[in-house]
């Protein structure tokens, strides 16, 4: 099956992984450690990729793979040097480690304001808008987390150019970047020189796909407007 670890059967494999057993293997002899590392690699590779992608939207896929290597190496080192703590639950530890590795990689590329400021800005941006009105219904139905997951998945699955534009917009928020600023930041990150027209087209698609999630979930009607952007 060539390492394709993200289909449903592999998800089930991940669910069947005995995390306690792997934790015991990691504190064993070298052979047992290798077996534990191998089990993590075979069963959780796709999940670890996904955890990292969730906080590192701007990384290229090959950079994500390098980050995954770093995670697996860190676990290996910890086992070899007897620093792995089998009293800690394996999966939360592994995913915390993966997320921190990915964040470290992203921080080399971006600057961000704090979470609290972002939350305040989100609330401000939603006020007195049709989208905000839809979101109030989402929140009233306690459907916020599910909808955020849908937005996240929609962005991650976008074609690369749209995803990169989205990542610049997300990293820049609460600043509203101009098309030229997005263009420049994309060039800085990737070396690619997109035209402003291409950036505008990608940004429009990104927004349309986010709005579509609200429409499909029944929280909002499609907007009818004169697009004179």
């Amino acid at each position, binding site marked *: 099956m060539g*390492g*394709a670890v*993200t289909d449903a059967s592999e*998800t089930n494999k*991940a*669910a069947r992984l005995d995390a306690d057993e792997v934790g015991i293997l990691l504190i064993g002899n070298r052979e047992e450690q*290798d077996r534990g590392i191998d089990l993590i*690699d*075979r069963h959780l*590779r*796709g*999940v670890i990729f*996904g*955890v990292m*992608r*969730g906080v590192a*939207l701007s990384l*290229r*896929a090959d950079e994500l*793979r390098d980050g995954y*290597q*770093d995670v*697996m*190496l860190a676990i290996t*080192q*910890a086992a070899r040097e007897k620093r792995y*703590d089998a009293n800690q639950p394996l*999966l*939360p*530890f592994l*995913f*915390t*480690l993966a*997320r921190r590795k990915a964040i470290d990689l992203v921080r080399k590329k971006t600057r961000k304001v704090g*979470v*609290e400021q*972002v*939350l305040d*800005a*989100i*609330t401000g*941006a939603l006020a*007195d*808008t*049709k989208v905000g009105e839809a*979101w109030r219904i989402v*929140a009233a*139905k306690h459907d916020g*987390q599910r909808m955020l997951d849908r937005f996240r998945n929609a*962005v*991650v*699955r976008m074609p*690369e150019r749209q995803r990169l534009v989205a990542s610049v*917009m997300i990293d820049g*928020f609460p600043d*509203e970047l101009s098309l030229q600023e997005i263009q420049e930041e994309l060039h800085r990150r990737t070396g690619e020189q997109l035209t402003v027209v291409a950036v505008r087209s990608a940004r429009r698609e990104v*927004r349309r796909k986010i709005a579509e999630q609200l429409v499909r979930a029944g929280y909002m009607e499609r907007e*009818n*407007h*004169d697009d004179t952007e």
Partner: protein
Amino acid sequence: MTTPSEHADNERALDALMAAAFRAEDPDRPVSEEEAGRLVENPPALSPEDEEVLASMSPDYVQSLLRSARADGVAPRFEERQAAPDASIRDAYAAMNRGREGDELDDEARREIEKKRRELLGEPEAGAQSQGDEQDGS
């Protein structure tokens, strides 16, 4: 018909929701057991390029790298990393146990962020949630 001004405000609101999907939580927070379980049951989405990279990796990818590094240094990245002290394990444990060294957020700031996040998402307070769970018998 939406006016241009309303349209611009709605676009800004959509940007805000997209930002919320990626930035409404403290990214340094530890992954809880409950969250880890959800991640395994329902793995996060990957980009088409991620899928391609995953498909190109052999089933014994990490073992091969380790073997290569031991044998003849074919995996320089692994060797290079092995030579350098890696603080990530200590940091991850510290995150799980809270009270991290050099942590930028104190507990009060974390509580405030969590309160705002819950308000945005329409989630009940943590205590209220666990009470509800108990009443549900779940």
